[in-house]
C-alpha cells in the first residue's frame, strides 16, 4: 500500500536568505557538511518562534493539522541544533510547499489582486488607484463556499416546494410541511437530488 500523499504546506513568504554558514573554528573549511532545512520547517520556526503563535494557530496558517505542524517544528529544531552543535551550515530549500499571499478586492473597478510584498501595506487598488478596497478571503474556494452557504441550510418540502431556513439541532426530516404535512428534506442533499 502506498502512503497517503503529503498535504501542501502553505508558506507566506520565502526566507530572505538561502542559508547560513559557520565561521571560525575548523569546520568552516569543509563545505559539504550541511543540513537541509525545508521551507515548511523554516515557516514553522517563523510562526512559532518569531511570530510567537501556538502550534494550533500556526497549523491553521500553514493549512496542515496540529500534530503535523508539531512534527515539522520538532524536525526543524532537530536540524538547527545539529547545525549549531556540529558546526554545519544550514541550507534552506525544498519541502512540499506552495506560496500564498493575502488577496484584496477593489470596490471601485471590481478587480481582485494580491499583495506579494508583505512588508508594504496595501492601501489602494493597483489598477484604478481607488482607496475603496477590502480583504478578500478564500479566494480560490469562493464558488464552493458560496454554494454551500446558499443551499445547505434550507429545508424544502418535496411535494409542494415549501421552503424554510434550517434550524440547527432539528433534523429536516423531523419537521413537517405546514401546507401538505410532508416531511421536509435538506435542499441539495443526496436525498433531495434523488427526488
Amino acid at each position, binding site marked *: 500500500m502506498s502512503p497517503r500523499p503529503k498535504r501542501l504546506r502553505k508558506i507566506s513568504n*520565502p526566507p530572505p536568505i538561502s542559508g547560513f554558514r559557520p565561521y571560525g573554528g575548523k569546520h568552516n573549511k569543509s563545505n559539504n557538511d550541511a543540513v537541509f532545512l525545508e521551507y515548511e520547517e523554516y515557516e514553522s520556526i517563523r510562526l512559532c518562534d518569531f511570530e510567537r503563535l501556538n502550534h494550533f494557530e500556526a497549523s491553521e496558517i500553514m493549512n496542515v493539522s496540529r500534530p503535523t505542524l508539531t512534527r515539522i517544528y520538532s524536525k526543524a529544531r532537530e536540524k538547527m541544533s545539529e547545525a549549531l552543535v556540529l558546526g554545519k551550515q544550514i541550507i534552506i530549500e525544498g519541502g512540499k510547499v*506552495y*506560496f*500564498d*499571499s493575502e488577496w484584496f478586492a477593489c470596490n471601485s*473597478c*471590481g*478587480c*481582485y*489582486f*494580491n*499583495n*506579494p*510584498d508583505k512588508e508594504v501595506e496595501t492601501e*489602494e487598488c*493597483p*489598477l*484604478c*488607484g481607488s482607496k475603496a478596497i477590502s480583504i478578500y478571503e478564500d479566494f*480560490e474556494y469562493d464558488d464552493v463556499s458560496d454554494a454551500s452557504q446558499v443551499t445547505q441550510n434550507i429545508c424544502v418540502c418535496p411535494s409542494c416546494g415549501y421552503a424554510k431556513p434550517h434550524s440547527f439541532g432539528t433534523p429536516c426530516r423531523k419537521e413537517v410541511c405546514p401546507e401538505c404535512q410532508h416531511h421536509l428534506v435538506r435542499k441539495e442533499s443526496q436525498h433531495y437530488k434523488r427526488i
Partner: protein
Amino acid sequence: MKAAITSTGNSLNSKMDQRFGRCAYFVIYDTESDGYEFIPNSGKDAPEGAGPAAAQLVASRDVKKVISGEFGIKIKSLLDRLNIQMIVLKEPEKTIGQIVELLNHK
C-alpha cells in the same frame, strides 16, 4: 514600472484574454515611458506547461504586475514566489486601451 496584460489580439482595441497561460498575446506596458510591447504567446497551444512558461516569459521582462481574468493554481504560487502582483479582472469586454487608462488613473 512594467505591467503585463493578457490580450486576445495585437492592438490596443483587442479585448483582454481571460486566461493567463493560454492567452494569444501578452502586452507589456511601461507606465513610465508609456511604451507598449506585444509578445505572441508561444505556449498558447502547448499540451501542458503553458502557465509556467508564460510566467517565465513575463518574469524575464521584469514585470511587477500581471493583469488577467484568471490564474491557475500553479501560477499563483509561482508568481507569489517571484514577487509579481496578480490582478484578476473578470470583465472580458474590456479592451487593452481601457485597462491601460485604468492603470494610468493614479
